[in-house]
């Protein structure tokens, strides 16, 4: 006769493997004093243009580099390389998000001590990347004015997991009758207190304020490390 089924307690995080790698990465970033920003958004919201501009401007005063995730092409890496910053593509194949292990592999040959800022551009997707810690200091969620003001309400999980929001393509705001107040309130509804920047990678509007914010965070990080 077969023994009766019984219950045993397990208590294991399903994403433990990813979290362990993310923790290792975070320790490595901390030791090197590099500030790491990950970018998430839907496809076509202007992540790459925004990042290219960020790299170009930050490069004047800081040592910057980027990893960029994409399903199939290396187009984004080629675009970002125009900033003259070191850039590496992570081609995920059919995977809809980056995982910590992919970041770890991509960084194998990089000397992080030579960097002030590292940017990680996730695959264009507002759903899946929310579950995966990449060891970043700051998760930045980007929405463009052409997507409409209700994106935060449609994807509350990713907005809630982010630390800062950027509204991009504000040079097109009038053409698409975008309401800044509505978008801002929607972001605050799903993530109260989150800083929000309005920028245009095309005209440069709002970039100074956003870059100043990043610079301040880098100083904070290094001061905390020095204590």
């Amino acid at each position: 006769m077969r023994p009766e089924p019984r219950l045993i307690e397990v208590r294991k995080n399903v994403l433990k493997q990813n979290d362990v790698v993310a923790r290792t990465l975070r320790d490595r970033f901390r030791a090197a004093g590099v500030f790491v920003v990950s970018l998430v958004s839907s496809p076509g919201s202007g992540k790459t243009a925004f990042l290219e501009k960020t790299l170009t401007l930050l490069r004047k005063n800081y040592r910057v580099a980027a990893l960029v995730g994409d399903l199939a092409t290396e187009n984004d890496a080629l675009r970002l390389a125009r900033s003259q910053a070191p850039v590496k593509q992570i081609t995920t194949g059919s995977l809809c998000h980056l995982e910590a292990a992919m970041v770890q592999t991509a960084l194998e040959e990089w000397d992080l001590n030579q960097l002030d800022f590292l940017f990680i551009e996730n695959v264009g997707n507002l759903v899946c990347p929310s579950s995966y810690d990449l060891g970043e200091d700051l998760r930045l969620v980007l929405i463009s004015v052409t997507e409409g003001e209700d994106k935060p309400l449609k994807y509350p999980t990713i907005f809630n997991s982010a630390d800062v929001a950027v509204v991009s393509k504000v040079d097109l705001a009038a053409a698409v009758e975008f309401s800044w107040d509505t978008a801002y309130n929607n972001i605050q509804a799903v993530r109260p207190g989150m800083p929000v920047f309005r920028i245009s990678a095309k005209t440069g509007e709002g970039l100074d304020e956003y870059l100043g914010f990043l610079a301040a965070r880098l100083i904070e990080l290094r001061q905390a490390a020095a204590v």
Partner: protein
Amino acid sequence: MHELSIAMSIVELAEEEAERRGVLVKVVYLKLGALAGVVKEALLSCYEMACQGTPLQGSRLLVEDVSILIFCPSCRTQRPVSSVQLFCCSECGTPASEVVQGKELEVVALEIQECAPNPV
């Protein structure tokens, strides 16, 4: 759609546990937070797929939904949120961003059966 890779991780985790103890897994109990970024229905259909050809084939996944709780700075205690689209204390309406529950993606228990001893 990352539910398939999540389902495969669950199967892997349960398989390891079963192997270590030399038992068969009948049911996997999972806690799933509303902010885990995982769709329950998709996960359930992926689970069956992920089990195929593994010792977990024929097992069931039982999902317990975990609601969102925030720490309300006014009430100074844990409270539910008004909704997933409105991170405010459901009691007093104060905006609150400190999530204390709702991100769970955790295998909490397994229903197992000892492997039947070989007939002599």
